[in-house]
């Protein structure tokens, strides 16, 4: 392990050389930033991961069942398990997707589940990301470099290989492909996750395309290449639903493919992930995921949600208003670490303002207990410091079943005691080692 740690700077140099960056917009300007890598890995034992794996598969299967239901019979609403306010008023529910089930009944092919581990070792799910979750490419490329930096570390530790991510992605895409080529679609190089798009295109061997490379004719999607036209059967897209098709969603979208939704609804192309998934990873819906598991799978949830309160419900609201100073307030419409406020950081006056707001905008916010999640050791120069870290696990669903990638993106805060680990807020990342025995 010492050889690996002593090569941290060299690995970071190589990551810079390979263009491992993410983009952020600040003051309307695009900036590319390196994503600092800490070679001290997060290690998860085989037994612990086996339990996590079961829980993740269960959760994603339930979320896919929910999406199938909500875009067809809507039975879970009819049965009163989830109030309709949380479904149909969600910006993620797309009427254009109603009454259509995508190939193999899969909506979320790639799911990014954000977890934290409390000090008593219990794992809690903080967020489900079912709309184009990114981040797998970072541990994927960092592992390759780490193995080169210190082969003996990997020889002496039974670390599960993570090199199969491209194959898992291919399996997911090919298994739902009704006929034609598979492509990776990117909004372009000024997208925050452009490195990931281009790297996934490389590891899957699929072409990286942009909106203007694709067109729809007779409800079929085609790629117009330099050497001819070919039908496209599956699109792994990195573009928000709103911008996907100007004929169906935002008419002012310049980065969508006109008519792609018609091709999708005609069953001629699979869109990965399916449009409309936003209704299932809304922070308000998160509260109901354990109920979904019981409702659809008739099983007890294996993974826990962070204790969450919905101001929408009177009892939860009462508790929230009485305990706001020790809770976290989350705006359901925000992501990427934005829209998160800690009650303990608010002044008395701000707390009073928030109490009013939570009553008038009860659907917009959720309240959560602060989970004192574990610190992981992080290298800072020659020193080791404890920093908060989370884990994004990647769950891939194909027609052959749901699988968990035996790796994941561990993000850590670079500020002492900060719970905000997002890369866009200055965090770094670690490899996640899942031990094979």
């Amino acid at each position, binding site marked *: 392990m010492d050889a690996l740690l002593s090569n941290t700077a060299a690995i970071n140099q190589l990551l810079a*050389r390979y263009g491992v960056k993410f983009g952020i917009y600040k003051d309307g300007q695009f900036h590319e930033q390196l994503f600092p890598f800490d070679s001290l890995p997060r290690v998860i034992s085989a037994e612990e991961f086996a339990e996590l794996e079961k829980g993740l598969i269960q959760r994603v299967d339930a979320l896919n069942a929910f999406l199938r239901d909500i875009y067809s019979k809507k039975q879970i609403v009819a049965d009163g398990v989830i109030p309709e306010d949380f479904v149909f008023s969600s910006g993620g529910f797309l009427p254009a997707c109603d009454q259509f089930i995508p190939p193999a009944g899969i909506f979320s092919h790639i799911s990014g589940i954000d977890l934290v581990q409390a000090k008593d070792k219990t794992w809690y799910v903080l967020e489900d990301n079912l709309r184009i979750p990114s981040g797998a490419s970072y541990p994927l490329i960092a592992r390759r470099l780490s193995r080169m930096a210190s082969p003996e570390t990997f020889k002496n530790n039974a670390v599960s290989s993570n090199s199969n991510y491209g194959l898992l992605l291919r399996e997911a895409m090919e298994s739902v492909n009704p006929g034609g080529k598979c492509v990776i679609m990117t909004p372009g*190089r000024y997208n925050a996750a452009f490195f990931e798009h*281009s*790297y996934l295109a490389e590891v899957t061997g699929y*072409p*990286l395309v*942009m909106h203007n490379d694709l067109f729809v004719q007779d409800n079929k999607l085609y*790629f117009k290449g330099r*050497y001819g036209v*070919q039908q496209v059967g599956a699109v792994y897209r990195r573009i928000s639903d709103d911008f996907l098709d100007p004929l169906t969603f935002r008419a002012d979208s310049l980065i969508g493919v006109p008519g792609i939704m018609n091709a999708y609804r005609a069953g001629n192309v699979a869109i990965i992930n399916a449009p409309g998934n936003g209704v299932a990873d809304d922070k308000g819906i998160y509260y109901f995921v354990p109920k979904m598991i019981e409702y659809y799978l008739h099983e007890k949830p294996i993974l826990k949600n962070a204790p969450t309160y919905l101001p929408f419900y009177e009892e939860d609201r009462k508790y929230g208003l009485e305990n706001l100073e020790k809770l976290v307030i989350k705006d359901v419409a925000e992501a990427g670490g934005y829209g998160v406020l800690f009650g303990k950081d608010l002044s008395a006056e701000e707390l009073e303002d928030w109490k009013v707001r939570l009553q008038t905008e009860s659907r917009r916010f959720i309240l959560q207990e602060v989970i004192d999640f574990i610190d992981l050791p992080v290298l800072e120069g020659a020193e080791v410091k404890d920093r908060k870290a989370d884990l994004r696990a990647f769950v891939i669903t194909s027609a052959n079943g749901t699988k968990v990638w035996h790796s994941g993106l561990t993000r850590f805060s670079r500020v002492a005691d900060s719970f905000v680990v997002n890369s866009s807020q200055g965090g770094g990342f670690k490899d996640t080692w899942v031990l094979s025995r």
Partner: protein
Amino acid sequence: MGFISIEQSDNLFWLGRYAERVYRTIRCFEALCDVMLDIDEQAYKPFCAALNIPDIYKDSLDFIDSYLYKPQNPDSLYSNLSRAYDNGLVLRNTISSPSLSYLQLAMNCMEEGRRNRANALVGRQVMDYLLAFWGSIDEYVASGQERCLIKAGRYLERLDMQIRLGESWESIGVTLDKLERRLIGAKLLYDTNKFRLLLNFAQLADDDEEVREIALENIRTLLL
């Protein structure tokens, strides 16, 4: 094969052109620096005229600094390398991460040279990385058509610079042979009459300035 978009094929072609422009310029830059230091301080002026770039420089030192590193100067090597990099960045899956990494290294080098005012010193390293880049293209770009596209750009740019900088017709003839193979391999449409005229010039080796002007015009309008 054949699954390359029109935009990406443009990116490949222009990546080849810009990478070659930077490489060829650095190759002659050292000699130009020597001339400016030892013989003629104003030697950059005919160089600018030959390349048809505006002479916006106060003196030879300003030329060395601005022409190498200034991002605001659209003709600088920095700007040309940035364009090569921009074209390469969207081609990772076509040219491979290792090939792209050599462009990144060349770019890092240029950035560092700019920060440290390393003057012409950095050119050697940039040249090394560009040579490694071309080797990597041969190694990793599996598709013949894609390789031909990037090399068609490369040899077209080389041809243009060779004629502008007064290189021998013999070496221009060699480049023409390479270019023709790549144009055919990439299935790029070109004016065969103009190409034949260029071959004739190379065979006749007439070093008249007017011949070079006609040759340049033919190159400019060669692709259909």
